């Protein structure tokens, strides 16, 4: 069961509110539809098993993002994943075909994809990204700078906002 400030939150509501956020973050790391779904499932099972009380919706979301990172990190470390990463799935092809900028993000190394995702999709501050990834604030900033540089080389004609 999940509580926010002592109030019980239904699992249907949480899955509908945050399911896609978790899936998108998991996908940005794994580049795999099926692995992304597995991670989503593991994250929610972990949540329901934990009987947590969160201060706010933001607190719950930050926890979910953090667990997603850990679950996908575990997956990326498995020998099975390393052997099967060459098999790109349909979603990658779809993104390559339909997206304007995401296809270039997918070409970046994993660590850069994740900071780009948390910064530009989740609108998180670099301090919050550092907390979620458990890395130094300076490292997040330098990774973001490097990721932007790489994207600028790939994407022509799209201004990469720095905020």
């Amino acid at each position, binding site marked *: 069961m999940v509580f926010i400030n002592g109030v019980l939150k239904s699992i249907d509501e949480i*899955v509908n509110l945050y399911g896609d956020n978790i*899936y998108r973050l998991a996908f940005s790391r794994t580049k795999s539809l099926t692995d992304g779904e597995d991670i989503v499932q593991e994250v929610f099972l972990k949540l329901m098993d934990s009987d947590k009380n969160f*201060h706010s919706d933001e607190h719950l979301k930050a926890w979910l993002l953090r667990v997603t990172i850990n679950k996908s990190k575990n997956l990326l470390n498995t020998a099975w994943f390393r052997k099967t990463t060459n098999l790109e799935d349909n979603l990658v092809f779809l993104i390559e075909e339909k997206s304007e900028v995401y296809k270039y993000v997918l070409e970046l190394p994993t660590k850069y994809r994740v900071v780009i995702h948390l910064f530009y999709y989740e609108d998180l501050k670099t301090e919050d990204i550092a907390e979620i990834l458990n890395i130094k*604030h300076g490292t997040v900033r330098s990774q973001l700078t490097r990721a932007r540089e790489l994207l600028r080389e790939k994407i022509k004609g799209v201004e990469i906002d720095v905020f």
Partner: protein
Amino acid sequence: MFSNKYKKDNEIVKLDEEFKKNLVKKIKKEEKIVKKNRFKIASIAATVTLLLGGYFLINTGVLDREKNIVANDNLDNMEEKDKGQTQGTSMMSFLNYKGNIYRNVENTVGEKQLSEMKGEKLGVTITGFNEEFASEIAGKEVYTVKGYEKENFLMTTNINYENKIEIEFYQYYDEGKIKKGEDILKLIKVENNIEKASSYDNLGNLKNKDFKIEVEVLIKELKLSDNILESKEEMAEFEKIKGETKTLKIELKDGIIRYIDIYEGGYIFIDGFIFKLENKDIIKDIYNKL
């Protein structure tokens, strides 16, 4: 703008509605099983506790009041501890002492230094967040640190699974008291205490060169600088002119490691506080050397 286009592109990556429905069903089913199991475990545990408790009371008459380790799940710590993960992967290592949340600080203190630094024993950690001595792991012994104030700096020791002593340090700042650079310098004891200083460039690469002299110059400037976190105008200016950053990793003589970020635009960032340096030329010169 990139952010708008990236957000729009992300709409392609979407969970199937059927998947969501099945997931909710599965979680509800799992929840029922977990509840049943918990009830069974609780019943067994209660029975065992009653039997053992009765045995000890009858035979010894003593109740051990010190073993007050609460085994509940941590409510607020956002850390996710999976099997096989090391302590180093935790998101936020913390310690609650007198209602203040102390944050973990890196260190290289060995057992020899430990005996010199370990002060008065204050208690033992429990899991949780709001309680006194709450931390992410229960059973760590909490001590004051010789040469530091317990209101700002504490240490814990713990025997890990390899039967080795783990030493951790925790820092707390009373934010209202950090007005100038010298206020934080007094607490982190960097002045005249540096063993080695190395630097990370703005791409996060570590430079294997000692920047001790540069740090000492920087400290003199930092002492006089203002913490600008409370000023909206100053923070707006900071956002405009801060520029790139480089990070100084400062290893102290006592084994504690401190990080200082230097902004090209003349600012210093330490543990969440931002200080504005008056002499921009000095900081620019140091920044270029790092």
